């Protein structure tokens, strides 16, 4: 076995160097380095001649290179340098040399059977296995030559190319099992082989491509062409290590990256993959309750997060108030959550950025998939418009819940409606290697009719384009333009006389340009701008019909603009130490038309205390706010498997969500910073330690943070948002303090994968504006609604077989804070209760366990429809986790009741299908 490995090794090297006999590999170089990283070694060689190396970013972690050679051919230096590493090299063009894992060439090749057996070789990675399993029952046969030749050996010429781009593949290998011979393609993707006629099992491999297995029937000499598919591992891109993982914490501090095809195996409430609820399984992210679409990241309010879907801001990411996700998971490729060191081009929210990226449609074939659940159905179609250049993907989802409601024989319910849909479409145009354009449109809509009480609908609409351009190899740019609109219509029809209807809308238009300059391997600059126009129409309160006496009330519009310039540098000082520093400068202006009221000094901001007013015309600047945001991070690699990171981040937020309920709701209104309400500011320090355990295929992360925000907005007790034109009369501003420690252990590979996280954190708010009317809770600090000190999450996934996958979630957390009745008294002959300090007590602790089973259809390659069943149980133990507690007076005793939103195991079933059999996202 060992012999074979070495044999293959030399074979490859031979072909690499032999084909390019006069290549750079024979040029003479000097090299004298000790314990250097791969990058340093490469930099040393590159400095001496026009030669470029390519390798995956993660590789450098594993290398320690020592070479002392002078006037030596490059190939000899490379052999010496890489001898003790898990890598080898391969020349891919005249001046380009790839550093590739030895494993892919050496370890696995000899495992292939030496007979023409059709059994599949066992592969470790489950994703590959899933793929191969359904592809290779019947191997493609490539027949060369028409007549049987009686020559002892014939010459065949082949072209190996990229199926998608049709580019020739350089350095691809063809290995024939029976003859144990291999050959490597040249710079034009050509291979030449002298071989006896006959039948062969062939294996064609290339870096970044999926391995292709086929039969060769060689009758006589001739030509053939073979196309390879892209694999998920694109070398020369940096996202490599995240691909096989659920999540990845090796990037920036406080960044979680989730890959859709992994997390979609997790159990869910309604059988729909929901990135919001998946996020809640990560450390530092909680919510007030299940069934709300809002998240709280590291102790921040629900309005301190923004969701970008390919750079389009989505203001409401859920249907039915939070029970269903509003973005179809089939179009999502991956999503990243930034919560401490936030990339410099993002800002505008204090706590986090959710960066969701869609995938592009297939550029070669048309594909369609969909699913049917108990409440919703969805469908996705994709394909090329211009083959290899322009593709589309479109998806839609709709509910059929109305008929369930109509089945219930109760007039109030029968006449009620609940329906929703969402749709998205993406065009991806690869103009050439240096230019690409992507256009996405998104829409979601929810409609509710609560017979005789109210009617309600809300919708998102967004459209955005991204243009990417490379100015040579060192400079590249990206331009995003997006427009997003969120709005709701809301009618209260309970009393005819006072019935009203309201329409509310917020429009967010954003342009962002980013320039990345790769000064050298160590130093990467980024600069850019962003400009956001926010137009908020609080709408008009209008009589619902002609019987209503409601006074039309114009709640007014708001307009603001946030302009940002930013610059960032990532500088690798030594192989171990990287420093990142960025500065954002943001400027916010509130524009007229606006009438600003001034209140009598030293009094509560109430309509009755107005003493003066200022009038601003259209587009007059009412108020300016501006300030810098500093982002600093330091990464120190202690060794190839562990590192320390530190970061400091400042954030500014110029808009707030006003909510007087525990959990954010779709009727909550956004409000811009204005004459009275100042923008929120925050700083955060965090530190983390990261440790990989390669032998366990696991990693361990511990991160701690402390952050402090001021000017966060809280509503006064009992404030009515809907009918208050001057919102400064309903709001107060205060400080928010949060800190926490997050531990995460994840196992990313193997049959069993998953993670466990524990978080200790606090989130505290203080509103103390001096006078009693400017205080909440008498000015004392109180726990926020989402302050959950202890949170333990576990996600486990077991691939039992190719067709059966089991997954389970486990959540334990401290109960949410509540305000309890402290005393009672009689007033109007009714018993009333008076309350404790705000959020001074807690509901009982939260525990939940979910379970799901995925059953795949059979693995045959050629079939018209592949389907799978997903069965899941949410809250398996049926624990009645209290969401809220309320009190009733029963015979003089105040009896508490706890209300659980989901107090039983919820079973759901969905059936997913796709036309054809291929790997989907």
């Amino acid at each position: 076995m060992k012999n074979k490995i070495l044999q293959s090794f030399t074979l490859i090297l031979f072909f690499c160097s032999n084909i390019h006999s006069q290549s750079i590999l024979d040029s003479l170089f000097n090299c004298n380095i000790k314990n250097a990283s791969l990058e340093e070694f490469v930099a040393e060689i590159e400095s001496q001649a026009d030669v470029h190396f390519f390798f995956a970013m993660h590789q450098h972690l594993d290398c320690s290179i020592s070479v002392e050679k002078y006037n030596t051919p490059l190939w000899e230096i490379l052999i010496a340098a890489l001898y003790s590493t898990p890598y080898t090299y391969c020349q891919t063009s005249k001046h380009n040399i790839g550093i590739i894992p030895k494993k892919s060439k050496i370890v696995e090749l000899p495992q292939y059977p030496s007979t023409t057996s059709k059994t599949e070789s066992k592969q470790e990675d489950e994703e590959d296995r899933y793929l191969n399993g359904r592809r290779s029952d019947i191997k493609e046969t490539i027949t060369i030559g028409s007549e049987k030749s009686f020559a002892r050996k014939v010459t065949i010429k082949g072209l190996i190319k990229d199926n998608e781009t049709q580019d020739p593949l350089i350095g691809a290998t063809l290995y024939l099992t029976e003859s144990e011979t291999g050959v490597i393609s040249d710079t034009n993707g050509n291979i030449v082989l002298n071989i006896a006629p006959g039948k062969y099992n062939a294996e064609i491999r290339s870096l970044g491509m999926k391995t292709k297995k086929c039969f060769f029937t060689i009758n006589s000499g001739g030509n053939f062409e073979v196309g390879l598919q892209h694999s998920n591992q694109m070398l020369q891109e940096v996202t490599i290590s995240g691909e096989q993982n659920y999540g990845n914490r090796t990037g920036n501090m406080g960044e979680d990256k989730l890959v859709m095809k992994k997390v979609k195996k997790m159990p869910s409430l309604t059988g729909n993959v929901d990135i919001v609820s998946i996020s809640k399984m990560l450390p530092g992210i909680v919510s007030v309750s299940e069934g709300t679409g809002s998240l709280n990241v590291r102790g921040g309010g629900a309005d301190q997060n923004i969701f970008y879907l390919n750079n389009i801001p989505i203001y409401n990411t859920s249907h039915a108030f939070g029970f269903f996700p509003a973005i179809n998971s089939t179009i999502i490729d991956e999503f990243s959550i930034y919560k401490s060191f936030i990339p410099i081009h993002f800002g505008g929210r204090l706590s986090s950025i959710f960066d969701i990226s869609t995938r592009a449609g297939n550029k070669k074939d048309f594909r369609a998939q969909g699913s049917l659940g108990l409440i919703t159905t969805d469908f996705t179609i994709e394909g090329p418009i211009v083959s290899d250049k322009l593709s589309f993907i479109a998806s839609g989802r709709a509910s059929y819940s109305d008929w369930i409601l109509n089945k219930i024989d109760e007039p109030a319910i029968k006449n009620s409606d609940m329906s929703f849909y969402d749709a998205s479409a993406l065009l991806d145009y690869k103009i050439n290697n240096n230019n690409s354009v992507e256009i996405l449109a998104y829409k979601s809509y929810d409609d509710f009719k609560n017979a005789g009480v109210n009617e309600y609908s809300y919708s998102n609409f967004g459209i955005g384009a991204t243009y990417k351009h490379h100015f040579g190899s060192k400079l590249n740019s990206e331009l995003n333009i997006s427009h997003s609109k969120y709005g709701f219509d809301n009618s209260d029809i309970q009393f005819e006389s006072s019935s009203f209807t309201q329409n509310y809308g917020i429009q967010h238009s954003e342009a962002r340009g980013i320039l990345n300059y790769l000064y050298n391997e160590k130093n990467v600059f980024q600069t850019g701008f962003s400009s956001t126009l926010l137009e908020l129409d609080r709408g008009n309160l209008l009589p619902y019909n002609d019987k209503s006496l409601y006074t039309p009330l114009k709640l007014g519009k708001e307009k603001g603009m946030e302009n940002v310039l930013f610059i960032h540098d990532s500088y690798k000082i030594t192989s171990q130490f990287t420093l990142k520093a960025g500065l954002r400068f943001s400027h916010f202006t509130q524009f007229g038309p606006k009438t600003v009221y001034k209140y009598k000094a030293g009094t509560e901001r109430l309509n009755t205390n107005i003493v003066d007013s200022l009038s601003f015309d259209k587009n007059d600047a009412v108020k300016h706010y501006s300030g810098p945001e500093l982002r600093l991070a330091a990464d120190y690699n202690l060794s190839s498997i562990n590192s320390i990171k530190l970061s400091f981040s400042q954030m500014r937020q110029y808009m707030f969500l006003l909510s007087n309920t525990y959990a954010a709701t779709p009727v909550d209104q956004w409000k811009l910073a204005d004459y009275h309400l100042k923008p929120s500011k925050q700083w955060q320090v965090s530190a983390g330690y990261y440790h990989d355990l390669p032998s366990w295929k696991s990693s361990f992360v511990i991160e701690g943070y402390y952050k402090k925000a001021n000017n966060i907005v809280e509503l006064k007790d009992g404030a009515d948002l809907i009918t208050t034109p001057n919102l400064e009369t309903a709001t107060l501003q205060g400080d928010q303090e949060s800190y926490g420690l997050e531990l995460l252990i994840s196992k990313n590979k193997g049959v069993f994968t998953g993670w466990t996280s524990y978080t200790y954190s606090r989130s505290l708010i203080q509103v103390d504006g001096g006078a009693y009317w400017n205080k909440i809770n008498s000015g004392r600090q109180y726990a926020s609604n989402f302050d959950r000190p202890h949170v333990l999450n576990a996600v486990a996934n077991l691939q039992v077989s190719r067709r059966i996958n089991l997954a389970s979630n486990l959540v334990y957390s401290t109960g949410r804070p509540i305000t309890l009745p402290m005393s009672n008294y009689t007033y109007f002959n009714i018993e009333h209760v008076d309350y404790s300090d705000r959020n001074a007590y807690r509901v009982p602790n939260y525990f939940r366990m979910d379970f799901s089973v995925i059953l795949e259809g059979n693995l045959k390659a050629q079939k018209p429809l592949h389907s799978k069943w997903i069965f899941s149980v949410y809250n398996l133990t049926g624990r009645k986790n209290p969401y809220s507690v309320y009190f009733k007076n029963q015979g003089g005793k105040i009896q508490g009741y706890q209300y659980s939103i989901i107090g039983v195991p919820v079973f759901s079933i969905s059936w997913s299908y796709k036309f054809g059999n291929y790997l989907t996202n």
Partner: protein
Amino acid sequence: MKKFIEKLFIIIIVYLATWACIEPYELPNVSKDFVSSLVIEGNMNNDDTIQTIIVTRTREINGENKSTEAVSACSIEVIDKDGNSFIFDESEKAGTYNSIIPIQYFYPGNTFQLKLISPSGELYESIPEELLEVPEVDSIYFSPIQSGGDETAVQFLVDINGNESQCRNYKWELEETYEYRSKYFAQKKYPASPDATNTGVAFIQYDYYYIDDYGDTIYEHIEKELVIERITPSDSLYYCYKSNPINQILIASTDDLTENQFKGMTLNKVSLSSGKLEHKYSLLVKQFSLTNDAARFLSQMKSNQQDDGMFDGQPITVQGNISNVNNIDERVIGYFGASMVSKKRIFARRYSYNYDPGCTTIELGDRGLDEYAEGASFYNPIYFSSYFNPPYSWLLYPSHCVDCRLKGGQLKKPPYWDDESIIMLE
């Protein structure tokens, strides 16, 4: 707002009803945080000549102290706009203070202010509260409520019809009075009351068999005369009248409306199964004017009364208009209000075919009336009808079938009961 969102959520709740659940919750011990606060209730109005102010303290929730803790020995005065002072004296009921403010001081534009000195000497003052003109109570009517295809209740409603000079915030206080009836006339009673004058004799005879210790069947014939009381008239325990205040916070505002008008403010709901509407039901509606601040206080109080749902808001620390002059941070609960009042009474009647006052008669077979009366004190005294089938069978009524007073009402007819000028809703 809160209510609105709650309603909004109903649809989801219904839809996901099987997922949600409600269970009793054990209130943790909160005594360490308990601080007793002063509670002052008072609303000066022209409905009564006697004005009342009630001073109590909050008590620990579910603590030892179950009853209202009255605060005695306060000195209270109420001062109007022109400085006229009205001293309140503590009544027989501890913590309840009364005074008479003559009717001429109740005119729109006048204000009342509370000054209260507690037993410990602290001075509390309210913000002066203005009297606003209140419109006459407009139409009162009801609409049937159906459930599962059957009418189960009626909802009483009131309209507001005010003009520009009148108040825009309203509060209603309700008092219901209804006639109800026993199921049966009581005609005879046994044993007769000691002071009964109209008595008679019931002749009873029956046959009696039993098996003795030796297994022989013994036969006896019994004949008896019992003294019974004749009740005249036979419906004297048949008609009762009962009044209840309806303790609900009922408020509405026309502040957001173009006119000082409102159609269909919901008052109380009366279920048909209660039997209150079966014969005659009367609702007295008192309409109070409120200032904006008073309306805000009441809506906060009302909001805290409501059950919570998923999108529930923070409980509100209700903010009244009374404070300790020397310690503004001391929590004082209560709003010293002043209102003009208009009132209106209506009658209503709604037959329910399903209503049954609940009464089981007993047919007494071969046992003696006297024996029965002695053996079952539950039926003592025993009422029975003129319908019986002597000598072998008596139709007996439990007392609650004939004596309507046992359900809490009184026999005396309210003076307005037969007033034909009062509107009858049917």
